């Protein structure tokens, strides 16, 4: 009889990861996930037994009993919302989205029903222009401490001195390589694209997203990730059309292909890179030395939020470093908040995928609002995809 610590566990680590992937793919709901893995019960018990959850400063305000948040897949510790409900009596309904454009379309149409959502940096100025987000009342967010935030990540949340959004976490867009299949070390976007047409022929993936796919093709020539110049975009298009027949797929759902070994190299966001490397150590995450994208996801409150008090309460709750640190451990993306970084374990802070060296971060650019909404780039992407 073995005496492994795993004996008697309600679920094996392998099975847990399988269920987590099913949840991520949407094969099962969050409720099923919590049930199957036992996390739901664990959370409920923990929250009752240990009274560690801080009470919001304005608990006196009537928060109602439900609110809804729009966010990204696999982006939160499910326990966070369960604990918030225990503390405040407000049940949080989670809506998961695939792209900023879908979120924008829904908010623009009105009556989204969200009291909090998670936009990426380059969309905030557009939301402000369309007057569909609320200037934040900072007095209602005592847990947020601007002085502890790295201004590099927070600046786009504030427009003309008014804060419209506060940061959740940041990340980068690089590429993931299966180093067993592609043994030559790579450090640049030039090598990414050249390898895609040589050793990586038929095994390389690019995002189904114009911002990153065109942006990183522009980096091949050293142009800005956000370029809207006709001649530079023409060069990028030439490269993309040349690479197209060599690609394995044009898709932002690259984890299945990389995990199965069908794809050997893919454009990749930080959190996916960290997850792939954690499970399959030979998959490395590379930031192109020419630069590329750096991004911050923010929290913001829609103007037509049906339950603003609860939206503020949840936002303030999430800004508590003790809560935020669990969020970061769950989703794997790096934090903007110095107080949270102090609480993170050393192996997380030393992980070069999550916290790359400064010289690699310097050339990175934030995506711009104009880049995302530019019709010319949208048409270029359509020509690339139909080539």
């Amino acid at each position, binding site marked *: 009889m073995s005496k492994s610590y795993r004996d008697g566990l309600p679920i094996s680590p392998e099975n847990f990861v399988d269920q987590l992937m099913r949840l991520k*793919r949407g*094969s099962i709901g969050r409720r099923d996930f919590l049930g199957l893995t036992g996390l739901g019960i664990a959370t409920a018990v923990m929250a009752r037994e240990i009274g560690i959850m801080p009470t919001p400063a304005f608990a006196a305000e009537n928060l109602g009993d439900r609110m809804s948040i729009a966010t990204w897949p696999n982006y939160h510790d499910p326990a966070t919302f369960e604990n918030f409900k225990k503390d405040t009596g407000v049940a949080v309904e989670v809506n998961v989205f695939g*792209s900023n*454009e*879908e979120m*924008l*379309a829904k908010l*623009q149409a009105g009556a989204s029903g969200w009291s909090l959502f998670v936009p990426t940096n380059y969309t905030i100025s*557009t939301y402000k*222009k*369309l007057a569909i987000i609320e200037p934040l009342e900072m007095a209602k967010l005592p847990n947020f401490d601007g002085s502890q935030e790295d201004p590099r990540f927070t600046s786009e949340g504030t427009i003309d001195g008014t804060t419209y959004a506060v940061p959740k976490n940041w990340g980068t867009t690089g590429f993931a390589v299966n180093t067993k299949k592609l043994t030559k070390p790579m450090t640049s976007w030039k090598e990414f694209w050249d390898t895609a047409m040589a050793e990586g022929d*038929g095994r390389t*993936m690019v995002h*189904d*997203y*114009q911002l990153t796919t065109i942006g990183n093709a522009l980096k091949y020539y050293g142009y800005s990730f956000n370029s809207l110049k006709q001649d530079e975009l023409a060069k990028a298009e030439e490269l993309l059309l040349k690479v*197209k027949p060599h*690609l*394995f*797929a*044009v*898709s932002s759902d690259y984890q*299945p*292909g990389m995990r*199965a*070994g*069908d794809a050997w190299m893919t454009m990749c966001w930080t959190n996916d890179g960290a997850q792939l490397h954690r499970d399959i150590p030979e998959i490395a995450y590379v930031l192109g030395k020419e630069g590329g994208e750096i991004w911050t996801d923010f929290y913001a409150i829609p103007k037509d939020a049906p339950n603003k008090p609860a939206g503020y309460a949840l936002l303030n709750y999430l800004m508590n470093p003790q809560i935020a640190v669990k969020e970061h451990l769950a989703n794997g993306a790096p934090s903007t908040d110095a107080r949270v970084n102090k609480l993170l374990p050393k192996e997380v802070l030393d992980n070069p995928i999550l916290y790359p060296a400064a010289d690699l971060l310097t050339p990175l650019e934030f995506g711009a609002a104009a880049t995302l*909404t530019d*019709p010319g780039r*949208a*048409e270029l*992407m*359509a020509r690339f*995809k*139909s*080539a």
Partner: protein
Amino acid sequence: MHGSRLRRNFLTALLLGPAAAWLVVFLVLPFIAIAVFSVGERAPEGGYQAALTLAQYANLPARATAFWNTMVLAPVGALACLLVAYPVAYYLALQAPQRWRLILLALVVIPFWTSLLMRTYAWMYILGGRGIPALLAFIGIEDIRLINTPGAVLLGIVYGYLPLMILPIYVSLERLDRRLLEASADLGATPISTFLGVTLKLSLPGVMTGFSLVMILLLGEYLIPTLLGGGKVFFIGNALVDLFLQSRNWPFGSAIAITLVLVSVVVLIAANRISTRVSGARRVDLI
């Protein structure tokens, strides 16, 4: 007299009401909205801005490749479906033992109870590196890639749409008068010429129904090529998804949608014409 007719009219209206209301709310009104969008302009931040212009229609050539790919995929996919479906329907209708027939038909239909998205995702894993290629590697055939190939897309399409092709062909074969086959044999026809001259000809209405049904659905298909083809071939369905959810160019997307609807109608009418001409005019009834 008068009262009963009134009552009958009222009853008809009552019975047709829900279906009519459903069609108006979910088909006619959205269609009108899309027609209005299609003569508008894209707002600077995306979405729709009122205008009266045919610019979106003039821009249709920008998606010519997508239209062309769709026009090739739809008939080729439907034909592949037909080639697989016909023998199955033939066996079910003419060869299978009576007591098995219902069970076999149920087996054809049951996969429909699961969403096409789930079933296509399952194929991603069957064809992916840990699926069939891993089995092949086990017996010594290394480095075979099946996923994201044209063959994978064709397989997904045939698998996904097979029941829609089998059922109409089965129905037309099942009604086939067996005495015609005997007559053909008695008159000295070989089995092959009996099949071509009698069975195939009389089942053509079913074939045409299945063919146009699958083809119309394939005109809007985007899921299977995206999941099993790696999104490398661009169809009209993909163009529409991108225009509405990514670049949010609703007017251009609407113009493409209207064009696609018109093309579908033309295909339906043509299929109907061919079907009546080939078989309907020569229908033989032996009482």
